[in-house]
């Protein structure tokens, strides 16, 4: 089973991101779960969401404590939340930032990091406003690339079922897929 944790802010779409990823994996014949952290957070507050992916039937309904991947929708959260909590030894952290992945890996004290300027991708694709760019589709695109857990096509297919701006969001995912950078120069 592969377990992914998302960090974002209320209203930013972390929960939707977790569902898109689950949907993409589901399209590749996996069993999946996607769920938010069960809190009472309000708009603006940090929120967490999860995706579980397995090629067997997932019966385990417990939350995720040791993720394989952590995805951070906004870099400013790094100082507000313990984003690497429980991350597996060889886990990877994907951050929406312009910064260099090696530097980020070091800052976070993890072995593997990946970075994508999802904000820029979103702005390029006219997703959200300048003050509130919608980055969740871009970041899932980037995740497909760096993790190999799901294919780009599956992510795009999942995104295309969104009720609004589906094509632009799909394009953001494709763009991010192309632009994401991983630490260690990979």
């Amino acid at each position, binding site marked *: 089973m592969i377990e992914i944790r998302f960090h974002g802010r209320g209203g930013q779409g972390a929960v939707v991101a977790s569902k898109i990823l689950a949907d993409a994996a589901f399209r590749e014949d996996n069993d999946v779960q996607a769920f938010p952290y069960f809190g009472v957070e*309000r*708009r*603006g*507050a940090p929120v967490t969401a999860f995706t579980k992916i397995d090629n067997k039937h997932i019966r385990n309904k417990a939350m995720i404590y040791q993720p394989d991947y952590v995805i951070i929708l906004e870099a400013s959260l790094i100082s507000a939340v313990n984003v690497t909590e429980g991350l597996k030894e060889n886990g990877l952290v994907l951050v929406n930032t312009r910064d260099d992945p090696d530097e980020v890996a070091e800052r976070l004290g993890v072995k593997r990091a990946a970075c994508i300027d999802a904000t820029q991708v979103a702005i390029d694709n006219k997703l959200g406003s300048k003050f509130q760019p919608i980055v969740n589709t871009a970041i899932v695109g980037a995740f497909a690339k760096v993790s190999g857990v799901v294919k780009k096509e599956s992510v795009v297919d999942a995104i295309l079922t969104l009720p609004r701006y589906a094509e632009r969001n799909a394009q953001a995912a494709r763009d991010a897929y192309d632009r994401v950078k991983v630490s260690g120069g990979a």
Partner: protein
Amino acid sequence: MMAKLTIPEEELMSPGHMGCLGCGATQAMRYVLKAAGKRTILSIPACCWAVMPGVWPNTCLQVPELYTPFETTGASISGIRAALDALGQEDINVIGFAGDGGTADIGIQALSGTADREDDVLYIMYDNEAYMNTGIQRSGSTPLGTWTTTTPVGVKGDWEKSPKKNVTAIMAAHGIPYIATATTGYPEDLIRKVKKALSIKGTKFIQIFSPCPTGWKMDPALTVSITKEALSTRAFNLFEIENGVYRITMKPKKTPLKEYLMKQGRFRHMPDDLIAKVEAGLDTAYENLLHLEEFTQKKAGSSQ
């Protein structure tokens, strides 16, 4: 060169609360506590304000505060007042602080009972025009035409079909001695009204128009300025009713409703004819208010 403060400086609400960015309801609480002061007991039902003070053991409220089941505010403040009376404790303000859903819908019966018994309490309805704590469902106080998650636009245009419930009129029909409306955009007026209410014996009711950027799908920075437009479009009116006599406490120049609506995502689907219909309704209601003011003031004058 430093201007004098126009509202009391003492803070009885602390930062670190759980309100959304730019929450009008938190402003409402801040002002109410400034007006009421320390010798105040608050009763809060389920609503955003049941979450905002904080998760145990934290609280942002510096007055004693009782959380209660959703529909009980009226009964709860009656119980508090009865207990204070039984214990011989005087000079304590008992304030119920509930949302529009907790007031106009599920709490209206308990409130009606309190008013019928003429219990000496102040009931405040902070009005963000929907159930926000549960994620933006319609309430009785949701205006005609509004999108909420239970009045979706969808294919059929299932937006809210009935006008905003007139809770002050309902309370006026109960014959209580003081009723007022206020808004967070005018804290001085709000504070004056709360103080006045607390100086009167009996059941008092204040409805505070409190913008909710989350539920209104609006830039949080507009929380204050939107209230001014609400007033000038007659979407909300400021007045008070003292022993049946109406007084409109602000009569701004009329501005077009559409400008107000289009700043808020919850209204953005509204076709022009619907806007016109809503606007006409608001204008009529405002005229009614003017008439009531004239009529009740004349009557009061003549009976003096």
